């Protein structure tokens, strides 16, 4: 009898110490499976084991320290039901295997109408993968990869594959292969994303009618690479410091009928790099302080450049591979603002210069033949080289803008003028009473 009492006591103790609730909490998959459709699952501030599959509509909300950690063998979260909402989670530990038939991700979505928001993703091949998934929303995702040096061993921040009508907004991607990769994806919208230290911030393959607005691409090998994709809208984006021998702000390769408006291309190796692309419109963009403002290959035709500000670039625009004469540098009598490097008169004050801006360059052949030329684009020697070669026969017209806009007046800071004046007064006052040793003879007042 005593033994029986002891046994029952120990058994009841075991039940009390490890209640069923806690056992289930360790196994997130079991909790998900036990929930009803449309239920809300609130996770605690702890680490859950990953590689979970969500196969019913539900909402899963974490807290600031909720982590779902995969075992490194597959997708950490697979969404296989529509109307799933994931919020406030840190997801890590996806498989990095490149030999498997499947490309793994931290969050892989196979269905429509899902929402992923406020998630942090680390240590995974792809961040969020939309596979034939439509009408999903991905917002406020913070995705970090292994850094710029690692290209092949890691995937993309957000990978959109055969997926249409998705909304991607306010996401931050840092150090992945491509920031956002679109493959056969149509009518997706990307707003206010911030992409840095990747290979291509944005990479488009065979994806039409997408819209990009207010995204910022900084310090990538290439800002945005649009390949074989048509009818895109790129507006109000910033392509900044995409710097390196092969770098560019925006590459258009076999991309047609795209509308590129109000974007900023600042301090890139090339602002715009256009190859085998036709009928693209570039309007009201700011292409400033790039080494080459616009690199236009002869295989590209019927581009229209109007109302852009193209200034302070080492080379404003260069045409390579022969003369492409079908590009328009003005539209409806309005050309571009080429900055102070091309002084203009505007006697009738209509904002349009009185004579065309024509740019000659002898560098085109060198840039085309020898990639090391890019190393010299910041050198002051370039201007001398251009001037000396101006008289030689290899000097060609790079563009002719018949209706150039007169340069916008620069704004100056009055604080700066005050500081300059103050320093000047100080130096002059000092010079009145002292002896100058370095620039004057000792013992003699100057």
């Amino acid at each position, binding site marked *: 009898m005593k033994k029986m009492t002891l046994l029952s006591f120990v058994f009841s103790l075991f039940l009390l110490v490890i209640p069923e609730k806690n056992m289930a909490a360790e196994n997130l998959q079991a909790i998900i499976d036990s929930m009803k459709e449309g239920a809300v699952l609130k996770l605690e501030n702890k680490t859950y084991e990953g590689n979970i599959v969500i196969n019913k509509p539900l909402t899963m909300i974490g807290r600031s320290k909720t982590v779902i950690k995969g075992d490194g063998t597959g997708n950490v979260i697979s969404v296989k039901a529509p109307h799933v909402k994931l919020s406030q989670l840190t997801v890590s530990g996806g498989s990095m295997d490149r030999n498997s038939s499947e490309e793994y991700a931290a969050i892989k979505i196979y269905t429509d109408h899902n929402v992923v928001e406020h998630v942090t993703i680390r240590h995974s091949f792809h961040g969020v993968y939309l596979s034939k998934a439509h009408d999903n929303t991905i917002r406020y995702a913070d995705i970090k990869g292994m850094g710029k040096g690692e290209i092949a061993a890691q995937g993309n921040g957000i990978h959109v594959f055969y997926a249409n009508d998705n909304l991607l907004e306010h996401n931050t991607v840092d150090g992945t292969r491509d920031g956002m990769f679109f493959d056969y994806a149509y009518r997706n919208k990307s707003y206010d994303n911030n992409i840095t230290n990747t290979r291509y911030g944005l990479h488009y393959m065979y994806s039409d009618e997408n819209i990009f607005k207010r995204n910022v691409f*900084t310090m990538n090998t290439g800002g945005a690479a649009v390949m074989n994709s048509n009818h895109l809208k790129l507006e109000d984006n910033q392509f900044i*410091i995409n710097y390196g*021998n092969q770098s560019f702000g925006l590459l258009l390769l076999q991309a047609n009928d795209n509308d590129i408006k109000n974007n900023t291309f600042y301090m890139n190796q090339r602002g715009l790099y256009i190859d085998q692309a036709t009928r693209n419109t570039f309007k009201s963009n700011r292409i400033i302080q790039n080494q080459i403002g616009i690199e236009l290959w002869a295989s590209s035709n019927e581009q229209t450049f109007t109302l852009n500000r193209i200034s302070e670039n080492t080379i404003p625009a260069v045409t390579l591979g022969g003369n492409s004469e079908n590009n328009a540098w003005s539209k409806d009598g309005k050309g571009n603002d080429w900055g102070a490097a091309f002084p203009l008169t505007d006697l009738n004050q209509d904002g349009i210069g009185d004579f065309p801006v024509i740019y000659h360059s002898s560098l085109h052949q*060198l840039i085309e033949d020898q990639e090391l030329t890019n190393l*010299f684009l910041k050198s002051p020697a370039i201007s001398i080289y251009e001037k000396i070669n101006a008289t030689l026969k290899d000097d060609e017209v790079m563009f002719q803008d018949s209706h150039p806009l007169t340069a916008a007046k620069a704004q100056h800071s009055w604080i700066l003028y005050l500081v300059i004046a103050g320093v000047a007064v100080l130096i002059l006052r000092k010079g009145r009473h*002292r002896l100058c040793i370095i620039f004057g003879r000792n013992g003699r007042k100057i």
Partner: protein
Amino acid sequence: MHYIWKEWKENIRGKGLWLSISIIVLISVSILFRPTALSFDKGFYVLLINLFDTLIYFIPILCLFIGAFSIFQEKEQKTLIMLLTKKDNYPSFLVKKSLGLYTVVLVPLIVWFSVYLLLLKFTLQLDIKSYLVFVAAIVLMTLLFLQMGAAIGSFSRSRMQIIGYTIFVWFYFFFLHDFILLSFLPDVTYENVKFFSVIYFLNPLQSVRMYLETGMGVYSFGHMSRLMQAFMWTKPVFFLLGNLLVWLVVSVGTAIVFNRKEGYE
């Protein structure tokens, strides 16, 4: 130590150093206030690159002049003869004088860039590692051109000679070196690109720039072609150190071998 103190006293009484430092201060402040509609997280890097691109126009020539006139002044005041007859020989004089020059020019420069960091803190998101790389780039460039200036001061006999040599050295590194390389560019192949790279990085302005841009993580070396890989056969910091070594040795050597103890005046 005596030399440092002597150099300091001479410079604070003169205008050259103050003029140079105030130019650098003005440029850095003006870039800070530069009106720009571009506002973004990476403003810090943009500012440092722009600042470097502007300073590169001033620092080399100012340092050449400061270095050259500092040595020449010893000749002018006959203090060089005094020093050499007492206990120093020319190499030891040159080394001590150079150390004095480095201290007097670099200390105010480093102090200013420390203050400047505080100013930046109010406006931009800082990256201290990148800033240290930037300051190192400026310091190394200053040091190199000061030494070249000291060499010019050593072998020049008059102020006009100093101005002539200084402008030539500045013009060579600023325009001529790259211009000559640009002329040879069509003949560069995979076989001779390494040699071309050595000559390219012999220009201190190019090696400092490459060090700065890669050190700050701005310049990306991803997806390099075979030619580019052969061109960048070692790390940018080694190109810079090699450059520094070559020009310091050449400058000191030239100064010792061709020095003239007295000026015309």
